[in-house]
């Protein structure tokens, strides 16, 4: 590893031959060569270093564009109408423009994670010093930063080492964003390649953020049995002052928890969180509680539960301060990225800030010192709680009945609802005293509030839904396992062989946001289905919460029902958004630790390995954000397929293979150099699925890889066929494309499948040592 900015100053040094006075030596960088792994071909890749790899994937999985907008309005030449082949004033057509928007989204995502990492690292370096050692799992994790090692060729060992990694990311993001300027890139596939690059950088940024906080803040260190955390609004003890933290950056929350602990207040207040801050709070403080995913923000505020609201960064509702002020909840903005228009009070005495917030003189303040945030938040919560008495202005049912009578049944609420919820019918019933339809909406409502914005008579519709669903809300008492962080090296060794050979049928990563089409239960159902089938199920972010928000027949949540290890049938929550890097890291470590492939700056070879051998699939059922786009892009670049729920279609571009084009599915057999048709495995790189049933069948199918042994392929096919029959009510049409030899055919389905193979004119083929890279072909023996 390298160190930067070494300064040596010698006041006076005497030797037998010399006298040195006031010598000052400044060295820009010291190189530590103790890492003996040879450097691969692509350390610290630039915009075009991995372009060939990207284009190889993009040729196999061609973009299918569904422009969300026919126009471009990014410069003053515009607006330009790009409909049906027209080019804009700059020359771009709609394919270019759509891919440009994908790049912009991925760059925003990568910048956000990297900016988050920068803040965390700078703060922790200031607090703990540059030489603080990184430790993400003690002796169980020797490959501490697989993504960083792979992309940059750097093996970080201390907090200070992460600085150089981030500098690289920041430089790349600047270049990437500049590509989106008018008159830069001119080809849609080049925009796409750069979006892949943004994904690679994003994964590094996420990894840096998480390994820094795991190492310093004593988060669970790759622990399969990380503690179970109480989750749900019903778990919040509202007899105590309640501090609610929203966002993604744990640093201000740490200030709060430290202040409470130092002042023996740890059990006197409730610290609850929404979105990824909740996940990271509870990695630091197991008494913390998770309220739920981002879509619970309005519910919790309007329910009146919080006594003070702390906002950090990312996915925070930008109107939350207005909402909070209506409920006399003081707000503390704690991130320079999200100042909310509040006056910066960082340098004011805490007593004055507390007095202003408690008296209501100001609705909120900006404090950029996390320790001061801690003190002010706790003191304000303590003083405000007895005054507020959990004041809520949710209307009573009788009031709803009266107010609903003013509904004009204009349908604008339904037409503005992302879920097309039948709000007018629910309001009509409510006006007649029947609240059951409003109650039914509670589970499906994502809490965006667009219904209220659209209502011409200004009905507080979301508040009606929350009130009607109050009983369900208060019964939300579940468990989420605290984010465990990385996967241990020993876990990789244990499962590497069965995964690569296909005997563990796949790794299913259910990740991302909560923009679900019909509530979070689908996430639970999907996770449970695959854990029961002994896939490895990995969760993170809001999906990790939704996975734990429902119970089985025995009253157990998913995290109580299944083990937390990286093993067949395990369900492991890696943590918050930035912990998604550990999922990529686990895939990379299979190539490195199990298959002994060199990691250092060796991106193409590792991605080629993962793409052809590792049956991993990501599902972001409720993906909504730009960060979700960049996370997906990181996986595309590694050749890992990603599915999104129906709202994910709004990312406006899919990467789809064509199973009806055999010429698209050829790989090299590394043993001989011959080209072998391996079928559509995996069929797609990025696909929207419409229903949870479709998602489950697609997951089983997308876990199929060219390298599967006959035994592994047989297991994977049996899951694919079984799910198709159960959920589609029929056999898959494409089964012949996945059978290479008769040994691949599941024994119990043999007669049925053989009949299909005969009808399709199937012919046996070989199982290759698959690669897309000609340089990986070993010489043919003479």
């Amino acid at each position, binding site marked *: 590893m390298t160190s930067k900015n070494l300064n040596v100053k010698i006041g006076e040094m005497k030797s037998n031959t010399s006298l040195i006075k006031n010598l000052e030596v400044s060295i820009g960088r010291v190189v530590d060569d103790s890492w003996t792994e040879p450097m691969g071909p692509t350390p610290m890749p630039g915009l075009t270093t991995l372009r060939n790899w990207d284009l190889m994937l993009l040729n196999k999985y061609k973009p*299918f*564009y*569904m*422009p*969300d*907008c*026919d*126009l471009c309005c990014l410069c003053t030449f515009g607006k330009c*109408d*790009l*409909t*049906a*082949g027209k080019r804009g004033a700059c020359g771009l057509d*709609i*394919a270019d423009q759509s891919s440009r928007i994908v790049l912009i989204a991925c760059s925003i995502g990568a910048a956000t994670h990297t900016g988050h990492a920068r803040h965390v690292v700078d703060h922790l370096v200031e607090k703990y010093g540059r030489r603080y050692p990184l430790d993400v799992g003690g002796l169980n994790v020797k490959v501490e930063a697989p993504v960083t090692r792979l992309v940059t060729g750097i093996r970080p060992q201390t907090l200070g080492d992460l600085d150089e990694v981030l500098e690289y990311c920041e430089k790349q993001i600047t270049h990437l964003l500049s590509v989106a300027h008018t008159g830069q890139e001119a080809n849609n596939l080049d925009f796409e390649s750069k979006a892949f690059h943004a994904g690679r950088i994003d994964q590094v940024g996420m990894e840096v953020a998480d390994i820094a906080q795991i190492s310093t803040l004593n988060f669970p260190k790759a622990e399969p049995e990380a503690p179970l955390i109480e989750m749900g609004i019903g778990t919040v003890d509202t007899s105590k002052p309640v501090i609610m933290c929203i966002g993604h950056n744990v640093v201000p929350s740490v200030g709060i928890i430290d202040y409470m602990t130092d002042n023996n207040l740890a059990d006197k207040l409730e610290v609850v969180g929404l979105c990824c801050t909740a996940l990271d709070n509870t990695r630091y403080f197991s008494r913390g509680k998770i309220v739920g995913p981002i879509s619970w923000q309005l519910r919790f505020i309007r329910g009146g539960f919080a006594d003070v609201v702390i906002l950090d960064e990312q996915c925070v509702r930008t109107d939350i301060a207005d909402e909070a002020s209506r409920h006399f909840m003081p707000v503390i903005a704690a991130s320079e990225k999200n100042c909310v228009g509040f006056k910066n009070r960082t340098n004011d005495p805490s007593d004055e800030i507390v007095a202003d917030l408690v008296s209501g003189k100001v609705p909120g303040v900006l404090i950029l010192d996390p320790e001061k945030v801690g003190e002010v938040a706790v003191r304000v919560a303590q003083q405000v709680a007895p005054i507020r008495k959990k004041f809520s202005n949710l209307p009573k049912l009788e009031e709803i009945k009266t107010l609903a009578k003013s509904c004009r049944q204009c349908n*604008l609420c339904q*037409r*503005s609802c*992302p879920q*097309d919820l039948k709000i007018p019918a629910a309001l009509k019933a409510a006006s007649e005293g029947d609240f059951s339809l409003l109650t039914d909406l509670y589970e499906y409502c994502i809490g965006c509030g667009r219904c209220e914005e*659209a209502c011409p008579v200004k009905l507080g519709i979301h508040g009606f839904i929350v009130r009607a669903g109050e009983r369900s809300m208060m019964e939300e008492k579940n468990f989420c396992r605290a984010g465990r962080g990385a996967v241990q090296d020993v876990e990789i060794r244990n499962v590497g062989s069965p995964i690569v050979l296909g005997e563990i049928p796949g790794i299913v990563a259910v990740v991302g946001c909560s923009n679900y*089409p019909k509530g979070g239960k689908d996430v639970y159902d999907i996770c449970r289905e695959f854990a029961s089938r002994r896939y490895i199920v990995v969760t993170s972010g809001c999906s990790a919460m939704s996975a734990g928000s429902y119970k089985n027949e025995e009253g157990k949540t998913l995290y109580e029902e299944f083990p937390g290890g990286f093993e067949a049938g395990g369900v492991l929550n890696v943590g918050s958004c930035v912990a998604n890097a550990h999922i990529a890291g686990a895939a990379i470590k299979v190539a490195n630790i199990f298959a002994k492939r060199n990691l250092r700056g060796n991106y193409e070879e590792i991605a080629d390995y993962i793409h052809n051998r590792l049956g991993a699939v990501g599902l972001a059922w409720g993906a909504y954000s730009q960060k979700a786009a960049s996370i997906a892009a990181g996986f595309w670049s590694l050749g890992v397929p990603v599915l999104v729920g*129906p*709202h994910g*279609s*709004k990312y*406006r571009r*899919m990467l*789809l293979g*064509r199973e*009806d084009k055999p010429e698209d599915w050829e790989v090299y057999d590394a043993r001989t150099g011959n080209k072998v048709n391996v079928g559509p495995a995996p069929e*797609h790189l990025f*696909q*929207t*699925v*419409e*229903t949870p*049933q*479709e998602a489950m*069948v*697609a997951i089983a199918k997308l876990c199929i890889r060219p390298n599967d042994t006959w035994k592994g392929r047989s297991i994977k096919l049996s899951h694919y066929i079984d799910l198709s029959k159960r*959920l*589609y*009510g*029929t056999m898959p*049409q494409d089964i012949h494309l996945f059978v290479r030899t008769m040994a691949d055919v599941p024994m119990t389905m043999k007669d049925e499948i053989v009949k299909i193979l005969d009808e399709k004119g199937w012919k046996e083929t070989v199982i290759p040592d698959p690669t897309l890279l000609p340089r990986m072909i070993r010489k043919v023996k003479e």
Partner: protein
Amino acid sequence: MSCEPWQCAEIAATKKANPIQKPEVAVAMIKKASRPILVAGSYVTERWMEGRQLIDFLIDFARASKVPVVATAHVVGEFLKRGYEPAGFMSAMDIGNRLVDPDWQGLDGKGPYDMAMFVGMPYYMEALIICGLKHFAPSLKTMTLDNLYHAHASWSFPNATLEEWAKNLTVMTSKFEGGQ
């Protein structure tokens, strides 16, 4: 009946769907097409009209018109349960992606389709796919059979009540020889 996009923000720019004011107009255009196809989404079992599910109306229409059906998502089984075999089933993204390919010879290998009808998907998702076809499949006409106006289609029924929707589909079915 209104010709505003059902979901308020799903607007198109300069090329907007022609509204179909009468079902007979839709029938005339379907009859004029040489290779039409109907893409039916996951909502076909969730929409009810006059005590029947949308899928039942569609099966009647498909049988009468002989227009081949592609079932998306998981709904192929629902068609099979009712004794109707769709021409194919695949994800909504896959059928969209094939329809933009001018070289795709269709489910039966007999040549590209010249008209694609859509019905019964989540509104925003259907809108996006049709938008993709508007831009990238210049030889293909698109029509939506929902009771929700889709601005990106070539032709769309306006926003309509369930009763009007049922009537439209019933009239359309009756205008084909098999629906008499």
